[in-house]
């Protein structure tokens, strides 16, 4: 209960102002496509040079939490996930916004973010010693199987057809191979200079989601009478809160999945939202409503990606291993003040560590208050006429892709992928499985190659990859996931056949 005694530090005037500023700034940065949480935190590092250690960390922690939540705004209203964490949010959230439920979707997103976030931080406070051991349990073979587990999700994710889902996933896997391979030291599929470093995931994300939508809006032209102005129905906070509580199942699956995935170093928040979304979908009674603007989808995705934040810091704070790119940047923020994370961090720098963690807890509440305030303003975006919105989204997309690493090459990649995706969508393919392939490809591949090298020095790949409790557990999850996907596809097909016969 030591953490209780440091709450006072958070409410010191300067600390609290930083927390407030970090939260509001983070929400706005997060809502801007292309500015990922990692970059937001990195941009703030120089400011922390001049602050006391705990103040600097409060600022960085607030920015980390709120950029992830802020990403929901552009995902829901514009269908541009600001970071991989928000892909799953866009799947149902944007459909809700199109139906006029933008305000509701945003309320749900922020509230479930806060619930997930608070639980994630509580895990960080109470279970750090236990969970730290967990983080180390995952070696290359396990990470490989986790990535494969993610691949099995591809077929069922946001796609009318199982086969087309798998095909999109394969395209994504192939795209992820482009670039310089760090493990074997070879170049692959580098046709243009812009591809030397591989396809940047954020740029790809923006292109795949935003560009087809812009083209869709423009292709309808001005002649059509339904220059649809979407109404934004008013939504009371209480009603949103009730809605969230009534979807307890989605909320808890999202939070649990997010927390577990958050601890595993190297996988991190990129897939937490997508995996939680898929799990909730598989278990939900309203399975078939997913993708049509179903609140459960938003709740699962957003609770997961914020639940990931707290546990993702466990390997950093206790073992000095940054488990995600953002954690690596936070490590920089600690080092600059001469604070070395490690088992004795809580002994040597108790005030700094606990004030930081406490501020993340309070930050969740500030985030939900200001998030909803911003959401009410931002929801009006949906009322902008489509033709103007299309231009606006395009500008944001170009700006976002460029700002990732100040590279025009990324902008070209973004546009090329987007135009390709526009035509693929015409044939029933969808962007989410493709992006998942793009994210999982490198994780699966590099861990397989490393595992193979290690196995070569031990007892061979078969023993390395296929024995041990954790491997077997993960493999059975993979098999279960595949069987489940087949079973549901068969069932749906039978239902369709039956309804046709009835006609």
């Amino acid at each position, binding site marked *: 209960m030591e953490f209780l005694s440091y709450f006072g530090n958070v409410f010191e005037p300067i600390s609290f102002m930083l927390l407030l500023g970090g939260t509001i700034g983070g929400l706005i940065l997060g809502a801007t496509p292309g500015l990922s949480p990692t970059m937001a*935190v990195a941009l703030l590092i120089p400011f922390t040079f001049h602050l006391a250690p705990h103040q600097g960390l409060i600022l960085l922690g607030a920015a980390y939490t709120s950029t992830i939540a802020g990403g929901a705004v552009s995902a829901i209203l514009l269908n541009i996930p600001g970071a991989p964490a928000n892909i799953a949010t866009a799947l149902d959230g944007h459909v809700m916004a199109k139906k006029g439920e933008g305000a509701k979707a945003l309320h749900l997103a922020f509230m479930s973010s806060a619930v997930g976030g608070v639980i994630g931080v509580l895990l960080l406070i109470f279970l750090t010693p236990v969970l730290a051991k967990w983080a*180390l349990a995952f070696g290359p073979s396990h990470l490989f199987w986790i990535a494969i587990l993610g691949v099995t999700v591809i077929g069922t994710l946001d796609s009318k057809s199982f086969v087309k889902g798998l095909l999109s996933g394969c395209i994504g896997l192939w795209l992820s191979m482009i670039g310089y391979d760090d493990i074997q030291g070879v170049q692959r599929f580098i046709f243009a200079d812009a591809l030397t470093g591989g396809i940047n995931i954020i740029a790809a994300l923006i292109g795949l989601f935003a560009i087809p939508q812009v083209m869709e809006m423009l292709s309808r032209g001005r002649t059509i009478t339904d220059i649809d102005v979407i109404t934004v129905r008013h939504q009371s906070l209480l009603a949103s809160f009730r809605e969230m509580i009534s979807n307890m199942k989605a909320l808890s699956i999202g939070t649990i999945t997010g927390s577990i995935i958050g601890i595993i170093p190297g996988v991190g928040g990129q897939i937490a939202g997508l995996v939680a979304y898929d799990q909730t979908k598989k278990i939900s009674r309203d399975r078939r409503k997913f993708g049509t603007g179903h609140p459960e989808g938003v709740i699962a995705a957003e609770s997961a990606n914020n639940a990931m934040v707290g546990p993702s810091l466990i390997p950093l704070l206790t073992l*000095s291993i940054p488990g995600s790119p953002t954690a690596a940047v936070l490590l920089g923020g600690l080092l600059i003040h001469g604070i070395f994370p490690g088992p004795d961090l809580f002994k040597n720098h108790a005030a700094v560590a606990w004030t930081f963690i406490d501020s993340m807890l309070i930050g969740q509440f500030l985030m939900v208050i200001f998030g909803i305030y911003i959401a009410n303003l931002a929801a009006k975006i949906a009322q902008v006429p489509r033709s103007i919105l299309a231009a606006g989204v395009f500008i944001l997309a170009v700006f976002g892709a460029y700002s990732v690493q*100040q590279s025009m090459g990324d902008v070209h990649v973004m546009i090329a992928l987007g135009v390709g995706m526009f035509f693929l969508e015409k044939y029933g393919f969808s962007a989410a499985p493709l992006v998942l392939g793009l994210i999982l490809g490198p994780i699966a591949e*590099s861990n397989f190659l490393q595992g193979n090298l290690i196995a070569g020095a031990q007892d061979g790949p078969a023993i390395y990859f296929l024995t041990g409790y954790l491997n077997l557990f993960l493999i059975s999850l993979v098999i279960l996931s595949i069987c489940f996907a087949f079973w549901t596809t068969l069932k749906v097909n039978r239902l369709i056949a039956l309804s046709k016969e009835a006609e």
Partner: protein
Amino acid sequence: MKKILAILTMSVALMATTTAYAGDYPERPIGVAVSYGAGGATDFQARIVTMVAGNKDILGQPIYIINKPGAGGRVGWNWFATEAEKDGYTMSAYNVPHFIAQSIKGGVKYSADSFEPIANWGADPAVVVVGKDSKFKTMSDLVAFAKANPGKLTLSGAGLFVGHHIAALQIEKAAGVKMVYIPTKGGGAAAMKAVIAGDVLAGVNNLSDAFRAQKAGSVKILGVADLERDKKFLPDVPTLKEAGLDVDNASVNFRGLMVPKGTPQAVIDKLSAQVPVMFGHKRVAKRMKAGGSPMKIMTRKEVQAMWAKRKSTLAELLKGL
């Protein structure tokens, strides 16, 4: 007539700026391209060592960082060699031996001759680490195991043709053993995690990161791949040479600033006079020390000699690969 006048005034104005150029340089903020992502060690240190650039007695203009990560630094240095303006307003951070080893292996658009060094700020030697419960207590334990079990000693490091890889190659060559070098994606942190978790039997990592990990009680450091012991951080850890392995400092990760070839000599002179002063500033030193980042300030002349020496050592070492 008006047009001609306008052109005349414009060209006079232009001439004025070009002549004033070297004398008044820098007139606007200077960018430093870092070939690694935000938050990495190179980025982190580059931000610290350039933070006092705006002081009147240093450069009088602030320095800002541009991150161009990808393909182990190749993306950033390719960009810097081919596209960066040669006017002194774009510098880049270099990592030796990385970029020199990459250019020897080919497939990139630069070599040591594409750039002009300005000054060096840091030197982070590679060290050999093992898990805290490892049966290896000294370098000779490790070498003896590698000798008895060819191809069984797994060794993690941050990638191919970086300092860690070079050190591993040098150890193999010096001891006459065959080890399995496992490059990780995600840099030194992922390589360190592999050692702590016991995924691999040993690892090569940065001195600064290994020092922290040892302080945290998760690893033991067996040897330093440098010419001398590190007196400040690891006075008790022997160099590999002391441990009986003929390994020099070719794997030490030197970091500094450079400009593209073709930058005006006056600009190079001004920078190479002022930048070492900037690196030596006491606020910089304080921050670098706090972060556990070893500093080594070298002038342009010293860096030129160091680059030339690395080029020949690395060409020799990488010949067989």
